[in-house]
C-alpha cells in the first residue's frame, strides 16, 4: 500500500532524512516515534506529496507520487488519503459539519457524507459542536474534528501528525480507537507521528526516528 524507498531530504544544508525506507501493507498501522525536530512531520509531508524528496520514491497504491504531475498528485491524495495536520487544518469559514462534507465531496464519496459524518462526530464526542466554526472550538474539539475530517470518504491511507497532542488521556484513547476502528472496517493503512509511547503502543509497528534517520 505504502512504500518509501531511499528517501533523502534536506532543509538547506541540513539533512533531515537520509536513505529512509518504509513499507506498509493494506490495513497495517505504524507509529513514528521521536523527539521534536527529528523529521516526523517532514516524513508525513513527503508521504502526502506536499514536499518532494531530494531523491527516492514514494509509492501509494502502486503509484509513484514523485513521478506524478502536481495535479495528478492532488487527485491521488484526494482519492486515497485522509490527513490530520499538527495545526489541525480545518477550513476557518466552514462549520465542522461543512468541513467534513467538503472532505467527503473532494474524496468523491458524497453519498455517505451525512451518515458518516454523524457517526464520526458521535464517536469523537463532538456532535454538539457540529454547527460551529473552528474558531469557536476548544483545541481538543478542533483536534477531534480534524480527525473526523481525515476519516471522511473512507481513505485507504491515513496520515496523522500528532493527532492526540491536545487530547486528555480519555479522549486520546477514544481518538486512537476511532482511527483503528476505521482501519478495521476499511482495511486502511495508518501512519502517525507521536512523541507519546502510550499512543504508539496501539500500533502494529513503531519506528523510532533519530536525527538524519536511515531506517
Amino acid at each position, binding site marked *: 500500500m505504502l512504500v518509501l524507498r531511499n528517501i533523502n531530504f534536506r532543509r538547506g544544508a541540513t539533512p533531515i532524512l537520509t536513505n529512509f525506507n518504509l513499507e506498509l501493507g493494506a490495513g497495517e498501522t505504524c507509529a513514528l516515534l521521536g523527539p521534536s525536530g527529528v523529521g516526523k*512531520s517532514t516524513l508525513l*509531508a513527503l508521504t*502526502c506529496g*506536499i*514536499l518532494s524528496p531530494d531523491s527516492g520514491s514514494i509509492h501509494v497504491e502502486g503509484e509513484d507520487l514523485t513521478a506524478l504531475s502536481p*495535479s495528478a498528485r*492532488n*487527485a491521488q*491524495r*484526494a*482519492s486515497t488519503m485522509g*490527513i490530520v*495536520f*499538527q*495545526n489541525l*487544518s*480545518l*477550513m*476557518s*469559514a*466552514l462549520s465542522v459539519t*461543512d468541513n467534513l462534507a*467538503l*472532505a467527503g465531496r*473532494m*474524496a468523491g464519496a458524497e453519498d455517505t457524507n451525512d451518515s458518516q459524518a454523524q457517526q464520526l462526530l458521535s464517536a469523537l464526542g463532538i456532535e454538539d459542536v457540529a454547527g460551529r*466554526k473552528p474558531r469557536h472550538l476548544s483545541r481538543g474539539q478542533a483536534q477531534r474534528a480534524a480527525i473526523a475530517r481525515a476519516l471522511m470518504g473512507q481513505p485507504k491511507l491515513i496520515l496523522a501528525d500528532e493527532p492526540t497532542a491536545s487530547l486528555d488521556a480519555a479522549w486520546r484513547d477514544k481518538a486512537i480507537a476511532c482511527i483503528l476502528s476505521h482501519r478495521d472496517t476499511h482495511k486502511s493503512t495508518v501512519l502517525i507521528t507521536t512523541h507519546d509511547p502510550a499512543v504508539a503502543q496501539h500500533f502494529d509497528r513503531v519506528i523510532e526516528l533519530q536525527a538524519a534517520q536511515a531506517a
Partner: protein
Amino acid sequence: MKLVLAHITDRPMAALLNIGLIAFTSALLMALTAVTMHVSNRFERDMAGIDLVVSAKGSPLQIILSSLFHVDAPTGNVSVDAVEGLMRDPLVKQAIPIATGDRFRGFRVVGTTPAYLALYGAEAATGEASIGEEEAVAGAAAASATGLQVGQRIAISHGLGGEDGPEHAAHPLTIAGVLKPTGTVIDRLILTNIEAVWEAHGIHDDHDETHDHEHDDDEDHAEEMASEPSDQAREPEYTALLIRYASPLAAIRLPQKINTQGTLMAAVPAFESARLLNLFGAGRETLAIVATAFAALGAFAIFAGLWSALNQREHDIALFRLLGASKSQVIRLLVLEGALVAGLGGLLGWAVSRVFLWRLASTVPTLGDSGLRLFATSSPELLIMAATLILGALAALPAGLRAARLPLERALG
C-alpha cells in the same frame, strides 16, 4: 458554492461594503438608463405623425413642450386668419388645430378635432371616443386620477398653472367616453371640441365649419378653427397647429416660409426634442461618469478585499488544494466570490433603482403619468447587470491567480 457563500458570510462587513458600492453604482446607472429610455421612447410616441408645430412667436422648445408634450405654457395664440393660408398650403398634408388654456382638476383640457384622437390611435375604454358638441373624452390617466365617468358633466376652469382658475360653469361639458391607455400624451389630457373651448371663453365662431384641415389628393378643404384661451380677444384663435408634411420638400421649405412671417413660428419636434435630450444628456453623462467612477471604486474594493483577505485565507486555500482541489478550482472559487458579491450588488442596485424611479414618478407627475413602468427591465439595464457580474469576476481574478500559486506547505502552519 457553499464554500463561496461561507467565505462571503465569514467577512460580512467587507462583503456588505462591496455589495453596497456596487448596488449604488448599478442603481444610478440603471435608473439613468430607465429614465432616459422612457423619456426618449415617450418623445417618439408623442411626436408620431407630427412633422411641425406652428404657434405664436417665442421659443421653439416652449412651443414643442406646450403644444406637443403639454408640459409648459404656450407662447401665445395665433388667429385663424393668420394660419388660413398655411392650412391651404399644398406642402401641408394635414393640419390639426389645438386650443389650450383650460383644465379640469389639474389636467389640461385641449380643444381639438377628431383627427387629434386618430393621430394617437385613441380608442374608448368606456363610452365613445367622440368629441361632438359640448362633449369631451378623458385620457386614461386623467380619468383614473379624477374619477371621471361617462355621462358626467364637468365645468372646466381657466388657466394652466397653479390652482384651478375660475370655472366656465355656464358651459359644462359631458364626458362621452374614457379612453384606453395609449402610452402617449393624450392619456393625461381631457379632449373636447375646439368650439366648446371657444364657447367657454365667450367667443363665437363665425367660420362655417371647424375640423382638421387635410389635403387628400387634389381635395382642398378650407375649414378653419380657432381658439381663444384669453377672454380679452374676441376673434377665434388657435394655440397651435400640428402639421404633417405633404412631401419631403416641405421639411425644407415650410419652416423657413413660416418663420419669415411676422407672427408665426414653426418648431420642428424632432429637432427640439433632440435638443432637449441633449440638454438632459449633459447631466446624464455627468451622472454616468460619477457612476462609472463608483463602479471602478467598487471593483477595486472587491479586488482589495479579496487580495488582503487572501493573507488570512491562504491556510484555507492551501488546505482546499490539499483536499484535492485543482488550481483552476481555486481560481474559480475566488472569481465566483467576486462575481457573486457584484451580482448581489447588481440585484440590490436594480431594487434601489426601482425605488428611486417610484419616488421620481411620485415627485414628477408628468413622468409618473406618462407610463413609466417600474418593473420593466430593458436590455441596456440587463447589460448593466451582466457588466457588474463580469466586473466582479475580473476584479477577483488577480486574487484567484495568486491563490492558485500558494504553496501547499501553507496548510501546515
